[in-house]
Structures are given as structure tokens and as C-alpha cells.
């Protein structure tokens, strides 16, 4: 017992592993079974982008320089960014709208917290479930990229894990942000953040296109790191920078989990 208790004290409890948060995932899956078609709308969006912009604009752009003195079609350049965006979208929809509904209206967590589960379990369970939804989107997207020949490197086997990391970071921060929302109108802000992230994170063209000040700004935002990481993997241009992108997302996720747990405690356990 005491030999187990020590590492728990050193590392913040539950930073790794899900603990009792698993139970909340079971609950969410039970609900999702009944509305299995909902995620389809979410996955449709990046697919439409890939087919319209990737292929349409790709016609105008023609082949562009790829890794190792090869050339690639434009869709192969855009697809990893859309993969990153779909991982983000799935995670954010779940961790904002759905979590808010459960927190403020359905009072799901009030009941959960009268059982052995604690605030940190609620945060971890819900973040993990949002991560699952993001992963589900990403998996479909990866399969499509494979079918269209957009995975040109063996590194691409890590594209899905990288997408999961993106989902984790956005789920955690999404849930943390949701605990501060005062009403549904605040969700307009979510859209206001997501859209520029999607458009500016080197989704459709490289960072070098921007003036220096905008490059610096973009380099601070999370989806940029997600896109860069996934693109490095699917195009096989992996360097030390990839580790930096991954580290950014890990730190973002951990901060989100810590803030979300603390906020659930403040809101529900007064």
C-alpha cells in the first residue's frame, strides 16, 4: 500500500491513466449508441474540404515540391492539415457543447460526484470521451487519405496517434473553457476561435507565405503545431521540430486537464 502511495503523491493524481473516469466513458457510449449518426455530420466537413479545395484548387496549382526531391499533388499537401482539423473539431464539439449540456442542464456530474468518482475523474472521463470522438473522425479521415494515396511515407503510421494527441489537447482545453461559459451565447466565441485556427494554421499553404509578424503569431497557436506534426509524418519530413510540436500539444492537454478538474470542483462541490 505505502509503496504504491508514494508515486501518486509525486505525480498529480490521475495525470496518467483514467481511473474511475472510465465509468463516464461507458455512460457516454451508452448514450451515443442511440445517436450514432451524429458524428457523421462532423466528419463530413473535412471530407468536403478535401474533395472541393484539395482536388479543385489542386487542379489550378498542379504538382508541388514534396519530400526528397519528389513532387506531390496539392491534395496530399492539404490532407494532413484537414486531418488535424477533423481531430480538433470532433474533440471540441464534444468537450464544449455536450459537456456544457451535461454540466448545466442534465446535471449528470452532480449525480456522478455523489458516487466514489471525484472532480478529476469527471474531467478525465469527459476529456477522454471527447478524445475518442476526435479519434473516430481522424480514423475515418486517415482511411480516406490512404485510399486516395495521400500517405506517402512510412511515418504515416504515426498520423493517427498524432491526431489523437491533437484531440487530447483540444478536448482538455475545450472542457476547461466550457467550465467558464455563462450561457449558450458564449459558444459563438468557440466558433470565433476555431475558424481562424482552421484557416491560418498553414492548412492550405506554407508558413513562408505570411509576413514575419503573422508567422510568429501563427507559431503560437495550437492547431499550427498539430498540422505541422501530422504533415511531417504523412509526408515523411520528420525532424526535431516534430518533437517540439508534440510537446506543445502535451503541455496544452495537461494544463487543460488540471484546469478542468479544478473548475469542476469549484462549480459542483461547494
Amino acid at each position: 500500500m505505502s509503496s504504491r502511495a508514494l508515486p501518486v503523491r509525486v505525480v498529480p493524481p490521475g495525470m496518467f491513466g483514467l481511473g474511475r473516469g472510465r465509468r463516464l466513458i461507458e455512460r457516454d457510449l451508452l448514450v451515443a449508441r442511440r445517436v450514432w449518426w451524429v458524428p457523421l455530420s462532423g466528419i463530413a466537413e473535412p471530407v468536403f474540404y478535401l474533395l472541393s479545395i484539395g482536388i479543385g484548387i489542386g487542379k489550378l496549382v498542379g504538382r508541388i515540391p514534396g519530400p526528397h526531391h519528389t513532387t506531390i499533388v496539392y491534395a496530399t499537401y492539404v490532407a494532413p492539415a484537414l486531418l488535424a482539423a477533423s481531430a480538433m473539431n470532433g474533440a471540441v464539439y464534444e468537450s464544449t457543447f455536450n459537456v456544457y449540456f451535461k454540466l448545466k442542464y442534465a446535471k449528470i456530474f452532480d449525480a456522478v460526484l455523489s458516487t466514489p468518482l471525484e472532480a478529476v475523474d469527471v474531467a478525465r472521463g469527459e476529456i477522454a470521451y471527447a478524445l475518442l470522438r476526435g479519434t473516430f473522425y481522424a480514423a475515418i479521415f486517415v482511411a480516406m487519405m490512404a485510399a486516395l494515396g495521400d500517405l506517402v511515407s512510412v511515418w504515416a503510421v504515426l498520423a493517427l496517434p498524432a491526431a489523437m494527441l491533437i484531440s487530447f489537447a483540444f478536448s482538455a482545453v475545450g472542457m476547461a473553457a466550457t467550465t467558464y461559459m455563462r450561457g449558450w451565447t458564449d459558444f459563438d466565441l468557440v466558433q470565433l476561435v476555431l475558424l481562424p485556427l482552421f484557416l491560418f494554421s498553414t492548412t492550405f499553404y506554407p508558413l513562408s507565405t505570411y509576413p514575419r509578424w503573422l508567422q510568429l503569431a501563427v507559431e503560437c497557436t495550437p492547431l499550427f503545431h498539430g498540422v505541422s506534426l501530422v504533415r511531417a509524418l504523412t509526408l515523411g519530413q520528420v525532424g526535431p521540430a516534430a518533437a517540439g510540436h508534440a510537446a506543445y500539444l502535451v503541455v496544452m492537454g495537461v494544463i487543460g486537464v488540471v484546469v478542468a478538474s479544478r473548475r469542476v470542483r469549484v462549480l459542483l462541490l461547494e
Partner: protein
Amino acid sequence: MPGEPLIYARGLTKTFGSLRAVDAVDFSVTRGEAFGFLGPNGAGKSSTMRMIAAVSPRSGGDLRVLGLDPDRDGPTIRGRLGVVPQEDNLDLELTVRENLYVYGRYFDIPRRELRARIERLLDFAQLSERADERVEPLSGGMKRRLTIARSLVNEPDLLLLDEPTTGLDPQARHALWDRLYRLKAEGVTLVLTTHYMDEAEQLCDRLVVMEGGRIAAEGSPRALIGRYCTREVVELRFGPGESERMAAKLTGLGGAGVSERIEVLPDRLLVYTDEGDAAVAAVEALRLEPVSVLVRRGTLEDVFLRLTGRHLVD
């Protein structure tokens, strides 16, 4: 630890900003007991219950639940409690059965064991026929029964019920009482809050009356009636606006040892007495001719109103 109270509170306090919702209360609950918190709105009953349930940290004082400290051992304590909150918080996106299932899983009950328990609980709550329907359209009474069934899924040592029957019709209330008797007979310790005096008299072995965050009185329903009320109460009705004048004429009753005190209400006079018939005879001897006369037993309601305020004339 045998003999240790299941709940032990000394100087237990809860503050919200400058408001002292629970103000240094002392009480303890022993195993197998049915213990009640009575009190008007805002007395601090739910705040006390939430501290016991280890979902609301105390602001001061000592509290031990099942021999443990809720601040430190919250998950362990909650694992052995059943909680029926004041407002139902069922999972409306799930069916009746799924509600029990999901909640049971929060306690890590193995699936197979849980399925068996769920069948028993559905039967207990008389919800077997609605088991696979969604919860949302169920009636208030059914939802309440389901909430109680849900609170039993972990076979708790201690059941906390915050106003279990508020908002239910008489049939549903009696059905719930019946369920609670059965639990009590099985040895489950019950702690409940209520606004209904008949409920407290029926269910509680011992209770405290709370007011303004403090405990105003404590004892068994019988003992409280003995201490704060009389064996019987005579209710006299006079014509409109005559109560005050008649009360003045009745003051002699106290001197004659027939009545302990008289209370004037807008529509009637209450004569507190240990001998209702003697008091009625004394009133008749004064030829006051009330419109109606009713002799009844002193109840917890009389105690409650005396302790938590209503204008009194001793």
C-alpha cells in the same frame, strides 16, 4: 468500531460568503437509526446533508461519517452511502434500467452482480414494467422511486434522503414510506430531511429541528411533543375577529391548571392542555359558545411551529 456513531458532528459549520448556512451544529446518528432534520426553508438541512454526503467541504467543526473524515476519505465514504438529493438528477438520456446500470458502474460493481441487483431494485421500486423506457416522461413519483432505487444500488450502510416525498401525491408518499420502512427493518440507517411532520413522526426515531442554521431542539417525536407541546390541543373557532377578545376571557384557564398556554391564530384559538375534555368543559362553563370545538392530540407540527416561529401568547 462497534458503538461508534455512523455520523458524528461537533460544531459543524458551513458558510457561503458571509452567510452561515449551518452554524456550529452538534449531532450524532447511530447504526440502525432513522434520524430526521426538520426545519423551514433555508434552515440549512440540505447544506448539512451535502456535507455528510462528502460533496460539500465543511467550513468548520468536526465531522466523521462512517468513522472517516469526508475531506480526506470522500470516495470511500461515498462508496458506502446512498444519496437521494432534494432534486432528482436522473440521467434523462438513458432508460430506467440503464440509469441503475450506469450508476452501479460508478461504484465499480461487476456487471453480472449489477444485473441481478437491478432486477431486484426494479421490483422494489415497482418499475419493472417501465424498465426499458426512457426516464424523461415518467411521472414525478416514478422518478422519485427510481432515484431511491438508484441510491440503493451499492447496498449502502447509510441512506441520505433529502425531502424524499416532496411533491408527491398521498399514494406515492405512502408507497415510498413503505419502502423506507422495509429498508429500516433490514438495518439500513436512514437520515432524512422533511417538511412533513407526519412523515417525521412516521419514519424518525430521533430528529432535530433546525432553524437559521442552528439546532433548536432534539429528541424522539414523542419526547419533543412532551417537552414542547401538551398531550392534547383544543381548537376553538369563534366568529370572525373575535379570537383576541375570547382569548382574554380564557386567560383564567391557565390559572385553574386546565391549560398550559393559549395561542391566538387569526381564525382560531389553540388551548394546549393535557386534559382536552376538562378544557372543553371549562370553556363551556364560561358560556363562550365557540362556533366549533375540536380536541386533538398534540403533534410534531405543534412543536415545529412553536420552535420555528408563530406568534404565541403564553
